């Protein structure tokens, strides 16, 4: 792709996300779609994190743990300590990143299924911890978290108080979409930088990479920390939208779904997780009408998709481009 095409497609994407979608939704009056699209945006942020761990050759089924952690950090800071939501957002991300460094240092030595399984167990540990710790209020969870307040700097209101807004759904949508764009920009930049190339060398052969002088321990912890940061931020916003968080808000199923989003979109493509999340989430929603056959049809489609496009949806575009 030439430079101009790239800029044009990014501009087109931004126009669709920030202008076309709100216009279309207000025209059709289906404001419930805001909630769906907000969820897609947030889930794709978390999935982008998982994708990044795939990029260093690790299967991460533990993103649910960090989403839950981020949600609880934000909720506790807002409810118990009276912080502004906008401060808790980076705080939740940083907390998760710090936790992931501590957890990642030992467990990132594992590979393949061992890493996958330990992260799966991590999701369960997070859930059980949320149940057992006194600060998280056990199974009752944290409820009636206030909506995000106003954010102002130098007397200038940058983001208005969500509680006073006429349409807080739109506000949440714009927030989630903006964060999604920012996250994918970061991932794109990361992947196309020197660090990205080094990460790719990890994916192929860690021993070889380290023998050439790549600091593999450092790189994988960095990638894992960024990944968990995304998970924490996504979880924090989820808690703010639903105004509640429970130990069962993010479970093993969610962790597995984050991973599936990446697979479905394609592991070789930065924007794979975004597409995968969109398709999986909307597919699941659309199949709601089929009632009791929802799961059956959904899983059958997934199996068929896997049989014919095992390298993800975006591999379709790649092959046609190669042929054409």
């Amino acid at each position, binding site marked *: 792709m030439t430079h101009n095409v790239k800029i044009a497609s990014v501009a087109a994407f931004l126009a669709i996300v920030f202008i076309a979608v709100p216009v279309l939704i207000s025209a059709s009056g289906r404001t419930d779609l805001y909630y769906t699209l907000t969820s897609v945006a947030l889930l794709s942020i978390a999935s982008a994190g998982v994708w990044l761990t795939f990029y260093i050759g690790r*299967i991460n089924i533990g993103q649910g743990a960090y989403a839950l952690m981020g949600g609880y950090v934000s909720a506790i800071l807002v409810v118990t300590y009276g912080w502004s939501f906008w401060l808790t957002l980076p705080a939740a991300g940083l907390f998760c990143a710090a936790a992931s460094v501590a957890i990642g240092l030992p467990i990132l030595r594992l590979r393949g299924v*061992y890493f996958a399984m330990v992260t799966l167990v991590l999701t369960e540990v997070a859930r059980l911890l949320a149940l057992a710790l006194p600060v998280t209020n056990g199974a009752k969870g944290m409820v009636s978290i206030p909506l995000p307040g106003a954010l102002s700097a130098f007397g200038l209101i940058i983001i208005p108080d969500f509680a006073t807004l006429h349409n807080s759904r739109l506000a949440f949508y714009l927030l989630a979409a903006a964060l999604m764009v920012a996250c994918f920009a970061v991932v794109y930049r990361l992947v196309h930088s020197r660090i990205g190339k080094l990460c790719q060398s990890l994916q192929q052969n860690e021993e070889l990479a380290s023998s050439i002088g790549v600091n593999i321990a450092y790189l994988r912890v960095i990638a894992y920390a960024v990944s968990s940061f995304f998970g924490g931020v996504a979880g924090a916003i989820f808690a703010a939208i639903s105004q509640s968080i429970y130990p069962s808000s993010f479970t093993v199923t969610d962790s597995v779904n984050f991973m599936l989003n990446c*697979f479905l979109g394609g592991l070789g493509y930065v924007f794979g997780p975004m597409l995968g999340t969109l398709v999986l989430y909307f597919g699941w929603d659309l199949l709601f009408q089929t009632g009791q056959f929802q799961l*059956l049809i959904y899983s059958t489609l997934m199996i068929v998709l896997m*049989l014919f496009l095992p390298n993800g949806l975006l591999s379709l575009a790649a092959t046609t481009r190669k042929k054409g």
Partner: protein
Amino acid sequence: MEQVIANGFYLGAQYALIALGLTLIFALMNVLNFAHGQMYVLGGFITYTVYGQLGLPFVLALLASGVTLAVIGALMEKFLFRTVIKRSLREESTMLLAAATAFFFDAVILLIFGEKQRGVPKIVKGVFNDGGIIMPYDRMLVGVLALVFIAAFVLYMQYSRVGRAMRALAQDRVAAQLMGVKVDRYTMIGFAMGAMLAGIVGGLLVTITGVNSGIGGPISIKAFMMVMIGGAGVVGGAIAGGFILGMMESVGLTVLREYGDVTYLVIFAALMVFLSIRPNGLMGKPWG
């Protein structure tokens, strides 16, 4: 305390049998079969139908569970996993397939058998009680049967032609192929056997704990843990992992009772610490 250890042994025997099937499939294909718990549930429901509903002998029901699951496993390997492994660029793609089949089984089980908890009449009545240990006879029978199946499996893997071929495959796929082992065929047999083991455990346990359509996922997670404790892809490791987890559960539930529901938290945390010290489990091959 004797009671706790007896319970641990009983749990361990059935856990080990669950883990064996999973580890066999992993050793042969490097596939982590997410659908293992669902296969277990399916086996349980088949036994429930044949033994509980139709009133046929229990042995026949167990046989039906095993055979049905073996056929399903063979078909899954031939038409799904083999194709995807061939076409995919990255080995991990099979995980999506495995997860999708797990969802698929969940949906099928829910549609056919409903969401109710199902149980069957006891196979043997009565309770063993010598003052120290109390254990119902049917639990003892199931425990013993599980041990018999484990022994049979190990002997089969060790001494039969098929078992030898599968062990060769697990060691080195290419070398085995060069020595004339029919790789595709034995992979299929292996997958079928793994699925069959899941079905048999399901059939055995439906007589005690009953079965419902929602327990597939949790069973899979437990099976993953046992396999990791022992080391993925190693038969001995799976058996050890099963007994260790069974014992930890049994002891943990008694010792930690006063602290509330933290047994699993402790087990999980211990597992994570253990794996960061010994990344391949007790006897796993490096990076299996």
